[in-house]
């Protein structure tokens, strides 16, 4: 009883001494399994519709359709990593898209539309952030309230009418003439947001703090991080992403409608979860989330090309969420 036990018990499994140098890229097993799922889908698409699935047009189409929800998902991923949730993303997209397409706003042309969409998105994010960070509201409730009032305000602005965009420079961005080297501008924006999101999460203090707040808010606070301000910034970021997404949607659909962004909150959360983001916070990747979005978009595309109807699509979507999460859990438990 008085004998000291062996000093500092051995740690962890046999980690080889040469364990990956600082620069080595360690492909995450979760991410790899998602890439595998995506490749399997590409295979299915290629086999079932060899003519229409694997051509440039279709790749452009899939990426374009992924871009709006993709941008929203990047913001959502940050929020979930920090232990929060943003149920209002769809409503913010709707509100920003209708506010930016009113007759009055359209008078200011391209810049007016872009500016309004972004400002409305950031403004809604600010309200969310203040309520949650400084008002002490639970994110679920605060953003649920924003969902309700955002949709309501969007309806009030449109009066239920479809606001068609007449600004040619905005419309032109969604059309073939403006593709750069075959890449639609919407996809370029999506790619840029993804890369920036990845860098911010992995290479900046902001990203670190987001992960720390989500992993252990109390520890983050006692480590000297301003947890409340960080939370405020995170909802601002999500709002900003919604604003950008709203602009992309205006370009894509050529109009603003109060029904825009329908159920985006669920799609974005689902994509993030499939991508390996922990719903309780503290862990998640932008790459995973974006792969999640691409998987969903590709599935939808394959279904449409095969002329399957929406009932089948919905059933399959649910099954794929379950399957993806199960596969991930298996691969991650066997690897650790």
């Amino acid at each position, binding site marked *: 009883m008085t004998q000291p036990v062996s000093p500092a018990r051995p740690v962890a499994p046999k980690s080889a001494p040469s364990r990956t140098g600082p620069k080595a890229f360690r492909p995450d097993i979760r991410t790899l399994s998602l890439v595998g799922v995506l490749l399997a889908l590409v295979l299915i698409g290629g086999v079932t519709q060899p003519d*229409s699935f694997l051509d440039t*047009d279709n790749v452009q*189409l899939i990426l374009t359709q992924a871009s709006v929800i993709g941008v929203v998902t990047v913001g959502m991923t940050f929020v979930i990593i920090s232990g929060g949730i943003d149920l209002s993303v769809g409503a913010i997209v709707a509100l920003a898209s209708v506010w930016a397409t009113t007759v009055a706003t359209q008078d200011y042309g391209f810049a007016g539309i872009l500016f309004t969409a972004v400002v409305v998105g950031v403004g809604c994010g600010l309200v969310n952030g203040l309520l949650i960070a400084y008002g002490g509201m639970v994110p679920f409730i605060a953003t649920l309230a924003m969902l309700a009032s955002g949709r309501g305000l969007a309806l009030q602005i449109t009066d*239920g009418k479809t606001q068609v965009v007449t600004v040619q420079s905005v419309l032109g961005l969604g059309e073939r003439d403006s593709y750069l080297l075959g890449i639609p501008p919407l996809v370029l924006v999506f790619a840029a947001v993804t890369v920036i999101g990845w860098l911010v999460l992995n290479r900046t203090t902001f990203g670190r703090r987001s992960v720390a707040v989500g992993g252990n808010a109390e520890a983050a606070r006692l480590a000297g991080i301003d947890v409340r301000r960080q939370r405020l910034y995170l909802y601002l970021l999500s709002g900003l992403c919604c604003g950008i997404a709203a602009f992309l949607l205006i370009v*894509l659909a050529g109009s603003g409608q109060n*029904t825009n962004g329908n159920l985006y909150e669920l799609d974005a959360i689902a994509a993030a979860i499939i991508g390996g983001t922990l719903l309780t916070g503290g862990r998640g990747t932008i790459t995973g989330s974006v792969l999640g979005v691409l998987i969903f978009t590709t599935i939808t595309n394959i279904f449409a090309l095969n*002329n399957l109807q929406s009932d089948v699509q919905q059933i399959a979507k649910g099954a794929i969420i379950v399957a993806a999460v199960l596969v991930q859990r298996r691969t991650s438990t066997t690897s650790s």
Partner: protein
Amino acid sequence: MPETTSRRGLLFGAAAAVTAGGLLTACTSNEPKGAKPAANDKPADDKPGKHVTIGFAGPQADHGWLNAINDNAKERAKKYSDITLEATEGSNDTAAQIGQVETLINKKVDVLVILPADGKALTQVGLKAMRAGIPVVNLDRIFNTPQAYRCWIGGDNYGMGLSAGNYIGEKLKGKKNARVVELAGLDNLELTKQRSQGFDDALKNYPNIRKVARQAAEFTVESGQQKMSQLLQAQKNFDALWNHDDDQGVGALRAIKQAGRNDFLMVGGAGALSAFQAIEADDSVLKATVLYPPTMAASAIDLARALGQGKGVSGMAEFEIPAHVTLFSAVVDKDNVAQYMPTGFK
């Protein structure tokens, strides 16, 4: 969920058939159209009669078609000096709407016009009004039992499909192995199935035509763009497209433009102003649309007035108004679009 209810509003949103107006008024007018247009402008019976108070309860106007319903009812009522219209604030909440109708019953209005948020759920309050001796004109979304209304007037979803199918069939007559694509509305709704059924039934008369693809959008511009671009990718060539709803058609047209396609004929559905304008301009693939007329609200006011004054429908032999009026889903194309332009909704 707010979206769901608001979409529910829109599904009924589709077009306008003036033939019904013709039935009631026995004439169409060529007078210059007012700025706030409704059905054809001529009231049913200009001679003022007994004063009638009409209670009007509709759903929340969260969609163009429902807005048009409200406007049609209000504008029509204004044209009669012998009518007072008691319109409630629209609501998508069944309980709230029941409350509003009950208030109207308590106010002892002479006739009720009800467009229920949910036909089944408001049946009871319809029955209550009838029992209280207030005749009910049931607009579009039908109550569970005929006992709950004196007269039902509404659109014909199956008929829309038929009209669209027949129009396309005639246009493609003589073309061998013609291919047709359908962009349906929200698949959860019975009316979407009815429209598709009518469309399929009509196409059966044209053995040269085959429907090669169908995708369901959600009555929204966004979904219209999305689903249409998928359809265009899936079907590299086809001859005609029927889109159930002009609102989602805005998105569908956008997708068609983005894909740079113009090798087919498109028919819309509902009767939105933007569709009429496109048909008139004749610079896109949209050549026609089949109606689901919001002017039915104006006719409902006519019917309510006739009920209140104990009259029949002029131009018909009976002393009473009919129990059911199903509106015809007319086809609007370049030839007759001018006539319908005022009924187009935003």
